[in-house]
C-alpha cells in the first residue's frame, strides 16, 4: 500500500509518497508555473516514480496548500497550518512556535507537547506574497533566487525595505537600486523585511522552528528572525517539505482507518 501527500504552493508543488510502514519512499518538488493541476500531476508523478509505484495505486492522497482544490484526485484536503504543524512535530517531537514561510502568507503556529495546534496567526491580507517578493527581488537584482543568499552574505548592513505590501516593497527595491545601494545590501534588506513582517504577526517566544520554502532557499531570513526576536531559531529538517510530510501523515492515518 502506498499513500501520498502534496503541498500545492504558489511557488512550488511538493509531493511525498509513503509505503505501508509509513516510510517516505518518494518525494518531488516542481516549480509552480501555469495551472496548478498540471504542476500537481507532475509532482505526484515524479514522487510515485521515485517510490516505484503508480498514481493509480495510491490508496490515499491528502493535499494542502493554496492550490489544493485543483488536485482532483485528492481523497482529502487539509489546511496548511495543520500539515506544517504535523510535519514539524513529527520530526522534532517537542512543543514549539513554528513559523511557516512560504510563497504567499507566512503563519506563526503554536504547537503544544502533544503536537496540537494551540494558536495560529497569519499575515494580514495586504502583506501576502513574502516568498514571492524575494523572487521578485532576485529578478530586479538580476541574480538567480538561489544566489540571493550568497550576495547577501557579503553585505555589511541591510538596506531598509519597510513596506509590508510586497508590491510596494518591490518598488522600494527599485528605488534603492536607483539610489546606488549594493545588490548585497538590498538582498539582505529584503530578508530583514521578511523577518520584520513576521515579528509583527505575533510575539515569538521559546523554541522557534521555521518551515517552508523561504528558509530552504533564503536562510538569511532565519538569521534575521533570530536577531530581531532574540529567540533561538532553528530550521525544520527538509523545511520546504514540511507541509507535504504532514499531508502524507494524514493520508497514512486515513489509510490505516
Amino acid at each position, binding site marked *: 500500500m502506498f499513500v501520498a501527500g502534496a503541498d500545492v504552493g504558489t511557488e512550488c508543488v511538493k509531493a511525498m509518497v509513503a509505503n505501508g510502514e509509513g516510510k517516505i519512499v518518494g518525494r518531488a518538488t516542481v516549480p509552480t508555473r501555469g495551472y496548478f493541476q498540471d504542476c500537481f500531476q507532475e509532482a505526484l508523478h515524479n514522487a510515485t516514480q521515485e517510490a516505484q509505484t503508480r498514481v493509480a495505486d495510491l490508496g490515499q492522497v491528502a493535499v494542502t496548500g493554496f492550490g489544493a482544490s485543483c488536485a482532483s484526485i485528492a481523497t482529502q484536503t487539509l489546511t496548511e497550518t495543520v500539515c506544517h504543524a504535523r510535519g514539524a512535530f513529527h520530526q522534532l517531537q517537542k512543543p514549539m512556535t513554528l513559523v511557516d514561510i512560504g510563497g504567499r502568507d507566512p503563519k506563526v503556529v503554536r504547537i503544544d507537547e502533544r503536537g496540537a495546534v494551540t494558536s495560529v496567526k497569519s499575515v494580514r491580507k495586504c502583506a501576502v506574497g513574502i516568498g514571492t517578493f524575494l523572487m521578485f527581488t532576485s529578478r530586479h537584482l538580476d541574480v538567480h533566487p538561489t544566489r540571493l543568499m550568497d550576495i547577501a552574505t557579503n553585505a555589511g548592513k541591510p538596506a531598509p525595505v519597510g*513596506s509590508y505590501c510586497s508590491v*510596494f516593497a518591490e518598488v522600494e527595491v527599485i*528605488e534603492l537600486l536607483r539610489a546606488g545601494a549594493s545588490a548585497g545590501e538590498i538582498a539582505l534588506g529584503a530578508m530583514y523585511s521578511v523577518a520584520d513582517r513576521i515579528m509583527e*504577526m505575533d*510575539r515569538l517566544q521559546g523554541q522557534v522552528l521555521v518551515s517552508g520554502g523561504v528558509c530552504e532557499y533564503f536562510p538569511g531570513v532565519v538569521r534575521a528572525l533570530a536577531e530581531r526576536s532574540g529567540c533561538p531559531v532553528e530550521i525544520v529538517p527538509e523545511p520546504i517539505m514540511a507541509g507535504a510530510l504532514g499531508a502524507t501523515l494524514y493520508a497514512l492515518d486515513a489509510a490505516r482507518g
Partner: protein
Amino acid sequence: MASPRTSEAPLASSARLKEIMAAHFVGVDRASREHTAPVAWCTSVGPVELLRALGYQVFFPENHGALLGASRVANETMGSAHALGYSPDICSYLTSDIGSYLQKRTPLSRYGMSTAPRADLLLYNTNQCREVKDWFEFYGREWNVPVVGVTSFREIGEVQRSHVDAIVRQMEDLVPTLEAVAGRKLDAARLEESVARSKECSDLWREVLATAAARPAALTFFDGTIQMGPAVILRGTVEACDFYRLLLAELQERVKGGKGALPRERFRIYWDGMPVWGKLRDLATLFAGLDTSVVASTYCNSWVFEALDPRDPLPSMARASLELFIARSEEPKQRYLERMVRQFSVDGVIFHDSRTCPNNSNARFGMPQRLRRTLGLPVLTIDGDLNDLRCFSDEQARTNIEGFVEQLEGQAPRSPAAHA
C-alpha cells in the same frame, strides 16, 4: 550641506525652543522618578488646564509619537505593538509609542530617559479620535493607574450650548479623581490662571502662524511643525508664552524686512492633514527646491483655541475642545479651509491622506473635489502616514508634488486680491 536654494532659513529662536523642550522632558522625568510632583499623561487637545491648576507635571504622548516618527525609530517599534494585537491600521502614534514602551527605545534618550515617564494618571479627550482612550487604557492596565477623560461629540456641525454643557459636566466629574491623585483641591484662581496662560499661548501661536500670510511667507508648515512644540506640551505655562513672544518678534522682523522662510517663493500651498514625520526634511527640501512655500496647515492651527476665556474656565475649555477642526462635520470644515485659503493667499491645496489617521484625513468624503469647485484651485491628494513609512512612497509623492507644481506653473499668476 543643502544648497541655499533648497533650504529654509534657520530661526535664531530655535536655540531657546530646544532649551525649553529639554527642560520640560527632564522635569517630567524627574517628577516621575523622584515623585516630586504628580505626573499625568494628557492628550494633545485634552483639558490640560485642569492638570496644570492641580500641580501636575504633564506628558503628552502624541508629542512622543511625533518624536518617534521624526527620528524614524517608529519604524522599528511599531511591530512590537502589532504583535500584541494593535493593528497596523490604527493610529501609528499609538503603535509607535506602545512599541517604544515594550522595546524600551525612545528618542527621549537624548534627555537621559530610557522610556517615556510613568504616569500617576492618564487624562484623555476623544474629541480627536477614539484611539487616545484605547492608547491610555493600555498604560492604565500596565501601571494600574486611573484612566479618565472626556468622551466628546464628533462630527459636530455648529457647536450648541447643549454640547458645551455636556462636556462641562464631564469635566466636573473628572475633578474628584484628579484631586485625589494630586492630593490637593482644585483652586478656582489657579484654574483661571492656567486658562489665561493657555489662551495667551494660543493667541501668540496664532500670530506666529499668521506671519506666513505675508508674501513671502515668514514661516513654512515644516518649520511650524517644529515650532509648535510648546503650544502642545507647554500650553498653560509661562515658558511657552515667553518663547512665542521671542519667535513672533523674529518672524515679524522677517516680514518687515520682506524676507521669507524660503530664498524664493513662486507658489503658496495649504497642507491639510498630518505631517509625514519621518519625511519632514525630505518634503521641506523638495518644496523649497520647487520655490514653493507650504504656508499654512490645518495641523499647526489645531492648537489655536479661540474660545478659551479665563473668566469662564470650564465652559470655555469645553467650547474650545468642541470647536476644533478635527471634531467638526464636513460643512464647517469646508468653510474653515476656504477661509484659510483666502487668508494665506494660497495657490493650491494638498491633502495628506494619512493611512492610520482617518480622523485627520479630509480627502475621503469628497472635500478636495468640493474645494476645487468652490475655490477654483488645483488640489492634490497624496497617500502617506504620520509615522508608518510603509504607507508612504517617496517616488509617488515626489512625482505627484512635482506634477502639481507644474500644474500651478501652467496657471495665470495669482495675486492676494484674487482670493479676497
